[in-house]
């Protein structure tokens, strides 16, 4: 069975791009439009990997990651963070929240999939 990836991003463009690249690589992709929604979909879909944006309404990426890590069922779930630039402070905050790794935007499909493979079981 192919792995399920949850992408959490408020931008439709970004969700579509992630979807395109990941489904072409054979992953099953589910979406959420912000952190709150992400937690709902997370519990319903039990994804194998999560890719999340940072800047989102309602619940941002940091809060989302912390909430995921607070749930014993998802303590070891790989979570990748999307950041626009190589901003060390953002990475640090994401790491503190419990992020596994990061993907720097803009990404191409190849780079994205290689990062996903890096954290995927």
């Amino acid at each position, binding site marked *: 069975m192919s792995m399920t990836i949850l992408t959490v991003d408020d931008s439709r463009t970004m969700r579509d791009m992630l979807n395109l690249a990941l489904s072409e690589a054979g992953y099953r992709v589910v979406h959420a*439009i912000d952190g709150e929604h992400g937690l709902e979909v997370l519990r*319903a879909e039990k994804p194998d990997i999560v890719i999340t944006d940072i*800047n989102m309404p309602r619940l941002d990426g940091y809060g989302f990651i912390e909430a995921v890590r607070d749930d014993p069922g998802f303590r*070891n779930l790989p979570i990748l963070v999307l950041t626009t630039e190589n901003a060390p402070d953002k990475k640090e905050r994401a790491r503190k929240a419990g992020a596994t790794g990061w993907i720097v935007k803009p990404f191409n499909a190849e780079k994205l999939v290689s990062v996903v493979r*890096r*954290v995927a079981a």
Partner: protein
Amino acid sequence: MDPMETIRQTFFQECEEQLNETETGLLALEIGEADSETVNAVFRAVHSIKGGAGAFKYERLVRFAHVFETALDGLRNGRLEASPSAMKTMLRSADLLADLVREARGDAAVDDARLEALRDELGRLAEEPGEPATQAADSFGFQPLTLSLGDLAPETPPSQGWRIVFRPAPDLYRRGNEPARILRELAELGDMRVTCDASALPLLDAFDPGGAYLAWSIDLTSAAPREKVEDAFDFVIDDCELRVAPLAPAPDAEAANADGLEFTPLSIDLPMIDAPTAPQAAASPPPTERKVETVRAEATVSQTIRVDLERVDRLANLVGELVINQAMLSQSIVEAALPRASKAFDDLTALEQLTREIQEGIMAIRAQPVKPLFQRMTRIVREVADATGKMVRLKTEGEATEVDRTVFEKLADPLTHLIRNAVDHGLETPDERAAAGKPEHGEVRLTAAHRSGRIVIDVSDDGKGIDRARVKAKAVEKDLIAADAQLSNTEIDNLLFLPGFSTAAAVSDISGRGVGMDVVKSSIQSLGGRISVSSRPGLGSTFSLSLPLTLAVLDGMVVKVAEQTLVAPLTTIVETLRPKARDVHRLGVDQRVLADRGVFVPLIDVGIEMGFRTTPADPLSGVVIIVEGDGGARCALMVDSILDQRQVVIKSLETNYQQVQGVAAATILGDGRVALILDIDAFVAVTHSQPPLAAVS
């Protein structure tokens, strides 16, 4: 279509939404009606545009969005104050951002000088107080580097490969990282021998499932450079001890090999690594529960779908045909002379109900709120205000009012023109306003509302009003009217709509774009709408647009006049009655009025007005329909009889034939014949120029 191309379209659509969000937010900030979430939303919108633009390599857009975002970030964390001048810069930046999006889409390129000027302005804004931003970045910037700095020396070419010692800290597991995966990635770089150091592993009673007890020593035979090796540890560099040293050169190679043989090769102890994962499986809920949740999640995800407009239009057309067909069916049933109690009548009623619901459903799909259109106008106001040196506030009302998509799209140009006019011609300069005892800020109001089955959009200003003397002089000068013409105020105001009329002494840059009010009028008319103007000297002017809700179907009263079948829009009808002799009064030679509820309304013989007959009919023989025009003026239409009340499909007369005075459109009846739909406002207008009607005491 290429999937990337589809996403690109999505990106541009989303940009429009985000640009709107940006503008709305900034405007709220400008007038101090914003909360902290407003700034965040604006920041996110610009950030999203930047993200998407990066993916499509719109470099100019990315660079500007970045500078803009930095300034907004300052606003967000309080480094920058939302002063009027700062907000002005922000708003202009939002406009530029919109233009850059358009440039990316292939429209007009943005002027470099303008881009640079604003970029500098934003840059200064972001830097102003003390620039703590860079400091913060620096203090973080050093931290992750500490570990690798010591090993920076070996610039020597990678001889054999690398010896890596890797000791994860508990945090590595806590963040969902996994040594096995890192080792697997390393294995892709070359031959690898891995030794697991389990010496730190405690006895079971002291074992902490969240702890980190294992370490690995890896000999990697590879030509890969150090960066490549370290790259595999990129995510965990702060959560482990890592040493990467060049593998001993050739002479020592054997020794290294010999060393390696003493270890059990590549024994990654899988159960051990999996240990921390165990609770996850235990926490999984039973499958049934999971299913229920899935359904719920999907319901939230699919809140909207996007459909090709053509499909919706096709559907709308089909429903139009369905309505006609149903009318034909009902005609056939009547002609079949079925017994009154026949079930066919009930079924027909049910079918009519369904058709109506389908049609309303489709109209609702096609409807969209005027909000985006109104938002676009805020920018127009700003631009014109900047260019003319006027101070203007735009107030909008009824943004949630929905109009049909076709109407929506065609409204942009006329509205833009009216708004430009309102600021450029309507409002005075701040000095003039001050002299007239008005506040310096002029006000332009843009309102939308549903009124008796139509959309009414008003553009009004609190400026000087129409200078009727000047308008008249201009019309005379342009030979549009005779020099001695006696015109009422309304008639003078309406001169503005004549082709070839332009009041501005010098055609200004702003309003004079080769489009006159006559073009505005004809484009509104082509939508089945009307435009009217009212003005009070010194107080301002109002341009009022009245548009049909839908362009497809209307509820009409089918009437007969001189053997012709006509349709009167139901929304205009106030009442129908059979006139009594005492209520009909002659006025002059060939005019009559009807006393209705204490008021005289002009009585119009539709048959004569439409040219169906020349001798007036006896008012007492027919039926009178009291109708009301947009302005609220009423008149009484005399018809021979009322046939039916039903939905009719609107077929444009202009596209199929030509515009006819007094006729709004045509329709096809159940028997296949064409019937004309009356333009009630034209009828009301005929009587409008008559002397005012006195109320009966």
